[in-house]
């Protein structure tokens, strides 16, 4: 795990939390959506809070895809849940809202869960046969397709020399 990878995981956490809260704030302003009034969806997207929320969730998506390219799904997912912890801490210390004991328990559980996962390896799935090597699929392909070509070169040159 490099610093850059921790930064990506932090992006996953922060963008998910910020995006979700913008979205929920916006959705509270636009009100209910029903199957009979599908134009409500378009109205919802026109709300600036919803729009900013969607942009932030796109940033989340980019970091999430980035993280999934080098870590297990079961490793990255707990990082997304840290966003809830972040939101509760922001609510308590920045917005000075009351955080109930049950919510503090929730924070403790999520933090514990994330701690469990973070203490283990980030990637386990590559050990199984049939999966491409996640670190270097290009190199793996080159090794398969390019190996004979590499072998041919010394054979030809040695033939010329002798």
């Amino acid at each position, binding site marked *: 795990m490099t610093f850059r990878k921790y930064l990506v995981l932090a992006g996953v956490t922060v963008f998910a939390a910020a995006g979700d809260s913008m979205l929920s704030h916006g959705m509270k302003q636009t009100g209910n959506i029903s199957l009979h009034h599908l134009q409500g969806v378009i109205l919802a997207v026109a709300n600036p809070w919803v729009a900013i929320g969607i942009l932030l969730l796109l940033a989340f998506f980019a970091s999430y*895809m980035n993280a*999934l390219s080098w870590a297990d799904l079961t490793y990255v*997912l707990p990082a997304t849940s840290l966003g809830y912890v972040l939101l509760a801490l922001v609510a308590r210390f920045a917005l000075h809202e009351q955080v109930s004991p049950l919510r503090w328990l*929730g924070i403790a559980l999520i933090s514990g869960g994330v701690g469990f996962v973070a*203490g*283990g390896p980030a990637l386990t799935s590559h050990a199984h046969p049939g999966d491409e090597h996640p670190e270097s699929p290009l190199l793996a392909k080159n090794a398969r397709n390019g190996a004979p070509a590499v072998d041919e070169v010394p054979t030809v040159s040695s033939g010329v020399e002798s």
Partner: protein
Amino acid sequence: MNHIPVVSTWGGILVVVLASVVGDILLARAMKQVGDVHALWRRAGLWTVVGRILSNSNFFLGVTAMAVAFFSLLFALSWGDVSLVAPAAASLTFIGNAFAAKIFLHEKVDRRRWSAAVLVAAGVALLAG
């Protein structure tokens, strides 16, 4: 909303959870096929990374499933009680993903990761409720 039956609310939650799990699994598989984007970016440039992701069919199926999950969550949230729908959908997705990652992605979901999935699911249920 009180006139919406409980069954519909849980049906909505189930759709959200199923679509999220399918989406997560497909996206995780797609990105494993693409490979480490840091390494690939350094070696072959950003456009190669973008091209590889956009030419991956699992990626598009995953995005479609995520879109289904997103809009069904919007519907479910507007029907049902937020304090039930949001935590139930989020925490059941965590548990579902742990099972699905083990079965479909062959991740080694050991005791450490099971504990994490259960703790996180419980914590999210408490926080989002």
